[in-house]
């Protein structure tokens, strides 16, 4: 298992675990609760058991994944909290 953020462009993997991403939100504008981030990425189809393909990982900055038919850009911090298993 390795964090999603370490996949190289072109590699495929299966999601094994999504660690809770608890962020502190202090501003009243932002109604997010801690733990909601995990819910949000799951709602976008990034779930345990899913196959993903790394489309663009420049080593720094956000990365781009393909999950099913959608391309999802994701911050690096979050990608490091998603554990995957490389596929042949």
């Amino acid at each position, binding site marked *: 298992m390795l964090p999603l953020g370490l996949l190289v462009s072109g590699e495929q993997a299966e999601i094994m675990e999504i660690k809770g991403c608890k962020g502190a939100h202090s501003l009243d504008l932002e109604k997010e609760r801690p733990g909601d981030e995990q819910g949000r990425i799951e709602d976008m189809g990034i779930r345990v058991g899913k196959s993903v393909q790394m489309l663009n990982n420049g080593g720094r900055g956000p990365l781009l994944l393909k999950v*099913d038919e959608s*391309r999802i850009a994701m911050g690096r911090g979050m990608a490091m909290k998603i554990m995957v298993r490389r596929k042949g």
Partner: protein
Amino acid sequence: MSTMTEERLQGSSRAALRAEKKAITVGVAGNPNSGKSTIINAIAGTRLHVGNWPGVTVEKKSAIFEYGGRKIRIVDLPGTYSLSPYTQEEIIARDYLIHEKPDVILNVVDATNLERNLYLTVQVMELGIPTVVALNIYDEAEKRGHTINRRVMEDMLGVKVIPTVATKKIGLDDLLKSLLEVAENPSAHCPKHLNYGDDIESAAKMLETQIGLTPLAEKYPPRWLAFKLMEGDSQVSGEIKPDDSGLSVSKAVGHLKTAHDSDIESIMADARYAQAFGLTREVLQKTESGNIELTERIDRIVLNRVLGIPIFLAAMWFVFKLTFDVSKPFADWMSAMTAGPFKGWAEAILGLIRAPGWTVSLVTDGVMAGVGSVLVFVPVIFAMMFFITFLEGSGYMARAAFVMDRAMHTIGLHGKSFIPMLLGFGCNVPAIYATRTLENPKDKALTALLVPLMSCGARLPVYVVFIGAFFSAHAGTVLWSLYVMGIVLAIIVGICFKKTLFKGEAPMFIMELPPYRRPSFKSLMIHTWEKGKHFLIKAGTYILAVSILIWFLLNLPWGVENKKDSYLGKVGQIIAPVLEPIGFGNWEAASSLISGVIAKEIVVGTMGEIYVAKPEDEKKNPSTFSEDLKEVGTSFVHAAEDSAANVFSTVGISSLSSKEDEKRAGLKAVIQKTYTPLSAYAFVAFVLLYMPCVVVAIAMRQEFGTWKWFGIAFVYQMTLAWGVAFLIYHGGKLLGIGG
């Protein structure tokens, strides 16, 4: 039919009555980029009305039209992936569905991405409201070798499933027919109860029975409410306080919790996803095509590590250039028209009715000048909205955010914020409006606060006059230094705000990059118009009011001869001491700066009024009405030609070629006597930084629904302006420069 009697009608008679009298309400739900908007645009066309959801700045699109002899009211809900309460969009969509109870839900599903879209469908079905599913982008799915068995899908869901291609208007007639059919006979098209497994179902059943005994059953769909209570949905629990209603939630979920050893929310999410997965497996057949999609091929270049940023900057340069080059001739035309023929006509009409002199001045210098300053913004706003709509519609906007994300992180912002900032150099007003492309309210607020530090075009005339008077030898460098000052301060202020007002982790960055699509001209036009119209109406009225106010301040008390004795002059005298430490403590400067709140270029105009005695009314031959009319027409044609020419010339127009009329030359002479080079530089720096103009204020108010952010901008900018001017003036003095 009064609501009183309507309320008394129950059951079928009520439904029948509704069928006859009331419009059918259709709520449109779907994932972002599922083509919801395209469907609505195609169906509603120009009847589309764009407003905001109450209290928030999320766009609300709706339309009323007739089809098959029935009135249909269609409401577009924000695009969401789920109906959980994670984001503002989700809360809006679900509040609408629960509390407004549309007659029919139109669930738009992206046929190319079935599983994830069905996850939302599964949740929509929990509401028990009659539903029609549109399998949109069906052609694309077929092209990729996907076949969807729609009969099986209809059987499994219990609702109608209609394949559509909104961009080509295929299937829309079927869709509308189905909507009518469902509205006529709602009970036959209520979605099936999908079985979430024994543990969940028995817990839900228990709660549903309890809910059925309370008045809550009237207000909420019981099955949905049971699910939400089980999940411990914070919003729902807050609304109904289950303990007060005598609902024993913990008892109902007790078994579920022990049996699954996980939190209920995840159990439920998994159950729903299992449904979406199962449905997809049953109805979808894929034949893999080895083709790499066009979108992916474009992305390989556009998002390339090396090429990404240069391509983005080039794209932005084009947008920026096109916006201002296309709009500038029209803006010039508008201002020339309001200052020339229109003003002349107003004077002539007022002369005919023998209006007293002060009314003439009020109308021409107050009202018409005010209207003029609004109209001048119209071309640039519309041009900007057009290009932004294009970038969004084509799918590039999301890529821009991706590419710029890292660089913008230094000031706690996302890549998407770069676009409004850049636009700010042209005009801060559209830049503020452009912040609506940022979903996160935090990013939006911080971006809007920093936008006014980008030196807009309206500040240029002020720079030109002062630089011309003092630094003509180094005009370019001095001008450049002002722009750079704005950028550097934006970075510093951004970091400060991030550490104070916007404390906490940078918000999570996750967004879907839609496939590239060619936006249809019609939808571009509709959206541009809707966005621009908003500005025209709202901003127009405010600017007008402020212009009139300033006019009064400058011309009261009646018959004031010397501007120093006018109210504006008096206020200027009061404020002047505050400006003393920063090098220009005279009432003339103070009064000009006050008038600059309408638009910063007005500073120059007011200075002209104050410093330079009014030139004797040049007796130019009064032109006839028909001559004027001809002038209006021909100059518009010239403007259109210039605009078209600018599109093709890369050199473009040089905005610095301000007309050196005599008045301005006179003004320069006076300024040279009143200011030193140092205080002049302090003054232009002050003009760069001090409070944003009224139009920006209105834009901020409109975008955020509160004056709070403008208030913050006002305070920090005033402080910053004063501080920086002080540093320049006294720092310079200490160093012995230009003192």
